[in-house]
């Protein structure tokens, strides 16, 4: 409308009618350009969706082939996992048990330690300490996990065996412990970010009541940052469930239906690399099992993430 009405004589400067007509033209051009840019950006945002679709497609395709050989019921209820043996059993529970116990051990380490560290760095440590220690700690998550695997096997296990002579050379415990330490920075960094985002005014409010640091941290800062801390936990859980190489090296790859961490066990992920590294003809049922296992894993992490999403919505920070 404005661009079509007779342009007014501008009040200031050297602009004239010609200039305004120019502007009208420019507007149309600008609109088109802006649309095109937005479309490109949207496409980029959708890459992540395509990735998920791709993952789901690949997993489903091979899994469907798998489930045409193996009934879903057997998959869920069988208590043996020997897909590559002559007498094949496909009881995913066995791998789930390994995944559960190893993640359990890891989270028992990572969540308390990570939270304590986060509180310490955010509420107790000085600026300098925080700025040096935080990145150093973050290096823990940067070390290639295969290196952790050997660390667990060659360093942690013998140490544990001195305390528990009965402990087998391969066990979920030592893999889980090391994994827990690896996950600490995921929990601590994110939690610390969330705690530091809590406005100073809340802390001042608490200190002004005569609270100590710990009281302020535990009673005010942590509850205020709860949703951020919860997402940190969820990320930690996803990492634990999805960790591969540490378990492949140190946990023994023994498909044991047990939750006892002092036993060796196989997890979903360690089974997948084992097969991916191995000798199996592609297209065989054995090969398809890794996709069925991958699908299970994906659904597991998906449900954790949905839980996290829901929690964030529900407990969004309200300062």
């Amino acid at each position, binding site marked *: 409308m404005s661009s079509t009405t007779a342009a007014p004589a501008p009040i200031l400067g050297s602009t004239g009618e010609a200039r305004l007509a120019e502007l009208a033209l420019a507007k149309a051009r600008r609109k088109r350009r802006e649309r095109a840019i937005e479309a490109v950006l949207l496409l980029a945002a959708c890459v992540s969706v395509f990735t*998920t679709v791709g993952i789901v497609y690949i997993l489903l395709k091979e899994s469907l082939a798998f489930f045409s050989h193996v009934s879903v019921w057997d998959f869920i209820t069988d208590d043996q996992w020997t897909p590559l043996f002559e007498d094949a059993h496909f009881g995913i529970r066995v791998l789930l048990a390994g995944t559960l116990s190893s993640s359990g051990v890891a989270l028992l380490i990572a969540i308390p330690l990570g939270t304590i560290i986060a509180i310490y760095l955010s509420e107790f*440590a000085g600026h300098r300490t925080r700025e040096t220690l935080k990145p150093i700690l973050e290096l823990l998550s940067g070390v290639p996990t295969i290196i952790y695997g050997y660390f667990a096997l060659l360093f942690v296990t013998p140490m544990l065996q001195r305390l528990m002579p009965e402990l087998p050379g391969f066990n979920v415990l030592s893999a889980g412990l090391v994994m827990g330490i690896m996950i600490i920075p995921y929990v601590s960094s994110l939690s610390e970010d969330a705690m530091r985002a809590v406005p100073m005014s809340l802390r001042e409010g608490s200190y002004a009541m005569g609270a100590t640091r710990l009281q302020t941290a535990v009673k005010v800062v942590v509850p205020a940052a709860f949703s951020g801390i919860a997402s940190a936990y969820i990320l930690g859980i996803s990492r634990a469930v999805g960790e591969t190489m540490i378990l492949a090296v140190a946990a023994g790859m023994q498909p044991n239906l047990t939750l006892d961490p002092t036993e060796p066990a196989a997890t979903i992920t360690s089974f*997948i*690399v084992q097969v991916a*590294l191995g000798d199996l003809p592609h297209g065989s049922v054995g090969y398809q099992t890794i996709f069925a296992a991958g699908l299970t894993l994906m659904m597991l992490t998906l449900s954790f993430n949905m839980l996290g999403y829901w929690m964030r919505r529900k407990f969004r920070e309200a300062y």
Partner: protein
Amino acid sequence: MTPSPKTTAPVAARRSTLNAEEMRALIRAAKRYDVLFATLGLLALAIGILTLAALFTGMALDGIPRLNSEFFTNFPSRRAGQAGILSAWVGSLLVMTVTALIAVPVGIAGAIYLEEYARKNWVTDVIEINITNLAGVPSIVYGLLALGLFVYTFGLGQSILSAGLTLALLILPIVIVTTREALRAIPQHIREAAYGCGASQWQVVSHHLVPYGMPGILTGVIIGMARAIGETAPIITIGALTFIAFLPPAPFMGDPPAGLFDWAFSGFTVMPIQIFNWTSRPDPAFHQNAAAASFVLVFMTVGMNALAIWLRYRLRKNIKW
């Protein structure tokens, strides 16, 4: 203003809860927990840092004797003493290049869309949930995706390009999330000022948001890359080579028809694969090589992280609100 005489009567007596002595005792008790917790915090930190130190010294003790210049300029060999990581570090470098070239623009563009353009509707909801989800998908699953999609469906083969694409997808959520955070940290009044000058949305984004968010964005990119460089599982699934005693062709130098990007289609190996191979060899002399290579790899990650911190520090200095 006459100074009042110093009275010994506890002031707090008037207060209904505590007298001065009680109060001091209470504060002392409460502060003990402060000290206790601080000790606990330091202890927890020590566990993490000591683990790191143990890892480092272990690798250093085993590996440093092997770290001479030949180690970096030799190809792999069946003789442990002559084996080097030339093809591995060059491979890692090239794969990282591809990863960066893809993940950085796509990640930043996606983040800009979600943060600045997206209307709040189910499409953006889906994209958002999806990104949080992807951040939690185990890396081995990306390997399966890459094998099916890039290697076979797109026919890219076991090339640097396939590996770079895979790792790019893997770190995309990291780049997107950190970029969004960087954009969110830019105060709204800067946007309003720019719009107030008559800027279009894209002008606001490209003139202001991206430059001002750069420190945060770079940090995210580098942290993502540091993660990618250590990834083993997905690269194994794609099928990196283990023995490769030559380097991918330099631009225009390969067998004819030589082109700028021939190297991207070349076979490759990367540091983690080389380490993995060496650790699984029977001859213990190779385990020393593996330790040395691990040392180099961890050093690369440390270096990248350090770079991220430094960049963040340097760039932030010039941006204040």
